[in-house]
C-alpha cells in the first residue's frame, strides 16, 4: 500500500466484507478439497471393488444360474454341498500342494539371490534387470513357453532329464510331475521379483552390524542367518502374505499349461480352486451361486493360511535370532 490516496471509507468496508467471504469460502475449500481429492478412488472402488465383495456373500446364498436366473434363497445349501464335493477338495489339495512346492523354494532362493546382489558387484544393473526380466512376461506367455519346455516325450525338460538318466514323466496327467512343472513356472516368474524386494530391505541394514559380527568371527553364512534374515523380517512376512494371496489364487499358469483345459489334466491333476470356480460358474451348469460360495470359502481359506504362515514364519525367524 504505497498509494497516497486513501480509498473512501465505504469502499474499504465493502472490500473487507468481500475478503471475509472469500476467506470463509477458502476455509471451506481447504476443508472439503481433501475429500474431493480422494473421492474418485472411493467411488470407483466402492462400485467395482467393495460392492461385488458384499454381493458375493449375497449371491452365495441363492440358487442362481446364468441360464435360469435367480431361483430363490437357499440359505447355506451351497456351502453344505461344497463339503461333499470331491472335485472341490481335489482342487483345494492341488492348490495347496502347488502353493507349498512353489513358494518355499521360491522365497528361500530369492533370499539367497538378494544376499548375493547385495555385495559389491560389477554390472549390478545387468544382474538386477536379468533376474527381473521374467516379471515382465505375462502369465499366458509363461504358460505357453513352459508348456513347450514340458511337452510330453519331446520337450526340453524331458531331454535334459534323460541326459542325466532320469526317465520320462507324464507332465500333465500325472500328479507330481504336473505340480512340479507348474511350480517351476511360478517360481521362474516370481523369484527375481521377490529377490529385489529383499534386496531393498537388505540395503537398509547398517553395514557396521556386519563389520562388528565379522570382528567377532561370524562367517558370512552365520551373518546371513543371524543379522540379515532377522532384520528384514517385516519384508519377509510381507512377501509371505503376498505369495499366499497370489499362490492360493493360481489360475492362469495351470490353465494355459494344460492347453486351455479348465479341468487341468485328464484326471484333474492340476486343477486349482480358482479354475474350479470358473468351471462351475462360466461353464457346465453356470451355477453362479455355487461359484460365489466357492469364492467365499477360498477367501476365508486365504485369510486363514496367510495368518498361519505369518505366525509360522515370525516364530521361526525369532528362534533363529535367539
Amino acid at each position: 500500500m504505497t498509494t497516497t490516496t486513501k480509498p473512501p471509507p465505504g469502499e474499504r468496508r465493502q472490500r473487507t466484507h468481500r475478503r471475509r467471504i472469500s476467506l470463509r469460502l477458502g476455509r471451506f475449500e481447504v476443508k472439503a478439497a481433501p475429500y474431493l481429492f480422494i473421492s474418485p478412488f472411493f467411488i470407483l472402488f466402492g462400485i467395482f471393488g467393495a460392492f461385488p465383495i458384499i454381493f458375493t456373500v449375497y449371491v452365495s446364498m441363492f440358487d442362481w444360474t446364468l441360464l435360469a436366473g435367480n431361483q430363490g434363497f437357499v440359505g447355506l445349501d451351497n456351502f453344505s454341498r461344497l463339503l461333499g464335493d470331491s472335485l472341490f477338495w481335489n482342487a483345494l489339495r492341488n492348490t495347496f500342494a502347488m502353493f507349498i512346492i512353489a513358494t518355499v523354494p521360491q522365497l528361500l532362493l530369492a533370499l539367497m539371490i538378494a544376499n548375493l546382489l547385495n555385495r559389491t558387484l560389477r554390472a549390478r544393473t545387468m544382474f538386477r534387470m536379468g533376474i527381473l526380466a521374467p516379471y515382465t512376461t505375462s502369465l499366458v506367455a509363461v504358460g505357453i513357453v513352459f508348456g513347450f519346455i514340458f511337452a510330453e516325450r519331446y520337450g526340453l525338460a524331458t531331454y535334459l532329464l534323460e541326459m542325466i538318466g532320469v526317465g520320462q514323466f507324464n507332465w500333465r496327467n500325472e500328479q507330481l510331475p504336473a505340480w512340479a512343472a507348474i511350480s517351476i513356472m511360478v517360481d521362474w516368474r516370481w523369484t527375481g521379483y521377490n529377490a529385489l524386494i529383499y534386496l531393498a530391505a537388505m540395503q537398509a541394514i547398517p553395514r557396521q552390524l556386519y563389520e562388528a559380527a565379522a570382528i567377532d568371527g561370524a562367517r558370512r553364512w552365520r551373518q546371513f542367518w543371524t543379522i540379515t534374515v532377522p532384520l528384514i523380517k517385516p519384508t519377509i512376512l510381507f512377501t509371505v502374505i503376498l505369495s499366499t494371496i497370489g499362490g492360493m489364487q493360481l489360475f492362469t499358469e495351470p490353465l494355459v499349461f494344460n492347453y486351455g483345459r479348465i479341468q487341468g489334466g485328464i484326471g484333474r491333476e492340476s486343477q486349482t480352486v480358482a479354475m474350479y470356480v470358473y468351471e462351475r460358474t462360466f461353464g457346465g451348469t453356470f451355477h453362479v451361486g455355487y461359484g460365489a460360495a466357492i469364492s467365499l470359502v477360498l477367501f476365508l481359506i486365504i485369510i486363514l493360511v496367510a495368518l498361519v504362515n505369518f505366525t509360522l514364519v515370525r516364530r521361526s525367524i525369532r528362534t533363529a535370532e535367539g
Partner: protein
Amino acid sequence: MSTLTSDPKRTTHTPPRRPTRPRRGVGSRLWEASPLTYLALVIALVLSVFPIIWAFLMATRDNRSAYQVPPPLLPGGDFADNVSRVLDAENGIFLRGLVNSAIVAGIITISVVFFSSMAGFAFAKLHFRGRTGLMLFIIATMMVPTQLAIVPLYLIMIRLDWTDTLQAVIVPFLVNGFGVFLMRQYAVTAISDELIEAGRVDGCSTWRIYWSLVLPALRPAAAVLGLLTFMLQWNEFIWPFVVLTPNTPTVQLSIKIISAAHYTTDYAMVFASTALAMLPLLVVFVVFGKQIISGIMEGSVKE
C-alpha cells in the same frame, strides 16, 4: 572397482575417491563378490532369460525346431513367415488383441496415475478427519484377493450390458490401492509443507496447488507407477478371459486362443505370437529398467 582389490597399503596415500564406498579392512572384504558369487548370479541370470530368448529363437525357426534334440540355439530365417501366419490366424485375432490392449492399458494407466496422485497428495499433505483410517483402509484393499469379486462383477457386467465390451475391462481398474499407496509414500518426502503454504499464501485453490505445484514434483513417482500399471494391464488375463469373447480380444486372450488352437500343428506360429506379445514390454523394460526396478524396490519398503 579396482580399488577394492588393490594393495591395501596404497590407501594411506590415496584417499578413497568416493566417500560412500565402504571402508577398507573388514568392511570391504565383507562385501567383496567372490567368483562363486558371480557364478551363482550368472546361473540365475541365464535361467531367468533363457525361456524368453528361447521363445524368440523358436519364433524365427520352422516347425521342426521346437522338439529338436539338442535344442537349436541359433535363430532361423522364418520369422517373417511365422509372423504373417500369426496375423492371419483366427481371423486376425492377434492384431485386434494388440490394439485393444493398447487402448485398455493406456486408458487405465492415465487414470490410475491421475487419481492416485490426487489421493496420494491428499493423504500425504492435506489435513482432514479420518485420514489415517482411510489410508489404512486403502492399504487393506491391496490385500483383498481379486478372484473374490469375479463372479458378482460378472453379474454386474451383465446388468450393465457390458459383457464383451472394452469398458468391462477398463472401468473396474481405473483406480487401485497400490497406486495411492505408492504416490503417498513418495509425496510425503518429495513435497515440502512450505511449498503448499506458499501456494496458499498466494491464494491458490487446492486444485491449483495440486496441478501446478504438486503434480510436477510427483513426476518421477508418476512415471514409475505408470510403467508398472501399464505392464500389469498388458499382462492381465483372468478378468478379460471371463468377460470378453474372441470378438473383443486382448493381447493375452489372443495368444491363449492361438496357442490352444495350434499347439499341436504350428508351434512356430504359437511361439511367434507369444514373442510378439512379450516384445512391447521387453522394449519398455530395456529402456526403463532402472525406473521399474526402483519402483518395485521402493514400493516394497513399507512400515
